[in-house]
């Protein structure tokens, strides 16, 4: 498989840049840049998980934001009751996400292609409306976190820079985990089920079960991303799980280059930084952003990474 042979330079460079960004940021608007890049990395985790599903398993989920929301709300609801201990809240967030993934996956994975897209959307919308009706926790208005999560009582995330590096570690961990999974026995079966599920069944794999485990893994990472998002913004709201958010996650994956993992991180960065910068130039930034999406699809197959590779090839040829 090409992922094995692909050069490691790019992912290493990405994480190096992320590790050094706070140093560069300290010369500018530090907290702002830290916040922006923290958001990039948090969405990067969710996008990674989605890339794992779409790019390796052919499972295009249009409801992935639901997991982000579940993770975020777990943190916030615990927070509202005065529990902010990571050792409690994070495992619960992951378990709840996993449960939701397991239950909805059991239903969703019965369907294929567009039907899968739509049924994941349906579950996403359901959980969105549930969150909106949680009136003790702010309903549609959302809920502010009194303070960020603590580890064994220490407010280790209170400092923006500490939060940044914590998120970076989680991103790195997620990335390495997914890389290992993709290359493992399990990953090989999962990838095979994207290529030819009938063949996989006739050589003896119960494709559904493997896909469901993969769906649970991606759901957990989505939950992790939401948990971190709640800590970074110190605020949660149902809009975290709207279908538009799920769509944005898909765009991030495609933007960077699907089926590469590190492409998802590049995609998340490109998407959020573009949104931020274009938004700074004109309030009509969508007039620019929309056509950009069209152009990327038309001319840059394989996203930004694909574009970079094809330019490199053209240069070396010429």
């Amino acid at each position: 498989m090409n992922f094995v042979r692909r050069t490691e330079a790019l992912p290493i460079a990405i994480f190096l840049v992320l590790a050094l960004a706070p140093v560069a940021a300290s010369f500018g608007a530090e907290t702002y840049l830290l916040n922006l890049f923290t958001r990039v990395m948090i969405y990067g985790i969710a996008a990674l998980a989605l890339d794992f599903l779409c790019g390796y398993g052919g499972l295009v989920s249009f409801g992935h934001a639901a997991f982000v929301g579940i993770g975020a709300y777990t943190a916030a609801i615990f927070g509202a009751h005065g529990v902010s201990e990571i050792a409690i809240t994070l495992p619960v967030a992951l378990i709840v996400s996993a449960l939701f993934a397991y239950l909805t996956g059991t239903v969703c994975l019965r369907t294929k292609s567009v039907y899968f897209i739509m049924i994941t959307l349906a579950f996403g919308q359901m959980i969105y409306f549930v969150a909106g009706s949680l009136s003790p926790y702010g309903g549609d208005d959302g809920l502010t976190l009194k303070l960020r999560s603590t580890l064994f009582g220490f407010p280790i995330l209170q400092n923006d820079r500490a939060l940044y590096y914590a998120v970076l570690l989680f991103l790195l961990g997620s990335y390495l985990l997914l890389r290992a999974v993709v290359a493992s026995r399990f990953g090989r079966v999962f990838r095979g089920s994207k290529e030819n599920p009938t063949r996989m069944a006739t050589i003896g794999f119960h494709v559904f079960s493997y896909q469901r485990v993969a769906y649970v893994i991606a759901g957990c990472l989505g939950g992790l991303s939401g948990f971190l998002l709640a800590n970074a913004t110190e605020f949660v709201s149902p809009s975290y799980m709207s279908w538009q958010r799920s769509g944005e996650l898909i765009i991030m994956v495609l933007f960077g280059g699907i089926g590469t993992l590190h492409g998802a991180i590049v995609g998340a960065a490109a998407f959020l930084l573009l949104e931020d910068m274009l938004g700074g130039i004109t309030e009509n930034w969508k007039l620019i952003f929309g056509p950009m999406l069209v152009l990327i699809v038309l001319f840059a197959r394989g996203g930004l990474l694909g574009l970079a590779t094809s330019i490199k090839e053209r240069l070396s040829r010429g």
Partner: protein
Amino acid sequence: MNKLLSSVAAVALLGTACTAQAQEKLKIGVVTTLSGPAAVLGQQLRNGLQLAIKDNGGKLGGREVELFVQDDELKPDVAVSKAKALIDRDKVDFVVGPIFSNILVAIMKPVTEGGAFLISPNAGTSNFAGKECNPNFFVTSYQNDQNHEVMGKYAQDAGMKKVFIMAPNYPAGKDSLAGFKRFFKGEVADEVYVPLNQLDYSAELSKIAASGSEAVFVFLPGGMGVNFVKQFRQAGLADKMKFLSAFTVDESTLPAQKEAALGFFGGANWAPDLDNAQNKKFVEGYQKEYNGAIPATYAFQSYDAGLLIDGALKAVGGKTDNKDALRAALEKAPFTSLRGNFKFGANHYPIQDFYQVKVVQVGDKFATSIDKKVFTDYTDPHAKDCKMK
């Protein structure tokens, strides 16, 4: 990758460029909704503030103003990020905004803890008026409940027996109906909560028609109100019962509602025809500046926010470094509001008069017009819970 690096550099440059430039300028951030259907409200907010600055010769408190306008996209997490950018990258002294309560709740912490004053020209939630009142937060509009209370009092005073009430299913909607019921003691035919941003009210209209109420009271801001008012008129209910409302028929929605809203009532702290010279000048100036659009309360309250900043800064000699002095100046509300009587309560929410307003036709346009004063120097019901530090 290069792209990523260069964007990092660009962001960093942007940051430094902003800090290097214009030391003397007063920096004001605006957080408002400029995309989606609610953009029309957000634009009024921005326009009102810009007009205030323009009318003051481009200055507030004697200093040139640099405005940083941010679109919150009506997404709380986006708003938080934009608010942090204003504080940290742009180093603003004031943030004016937002339109929506949920955005206010989200940006309160980053703005006030970041050392800037947050001045809300619209959203005024009950929590910040009461227990969670904040020394660095000022409101130039009202407490959210109040316009609904105006209608409740009106319905009670008019001796109505049975009213059908309806609002969107979100916290402000619940506050709204609670506010109405605080003063209205007659029978509530039904209390209906519709999903936020519902478009078609056919189901609810049938229920209203069947309820045999004397009046309907609704809180359906923005596009929701446009749809409801049109459909209410089409269903033939306008001739059968009175239409009471808050934030449902105003100058931001009337261009679309037109004749359909004629004669409908609203509760407000102001109307374009409020009789004072300054207000007349504002309404005329706004129409001239913005293609003949009549300003709504969002614009006027934002204009007042500009005047508030101007007055307070003048009182401290244009300096923003002494926050305590500036806060003390702000608390005195040293400006003449377009609405006339205005002062801040201990919770930094206004104490002001409220009116029942009615939709009228002005030339080929439609506007609200003062019909009757309902409250005088009215303090919001949550102020007593505020222990300002």
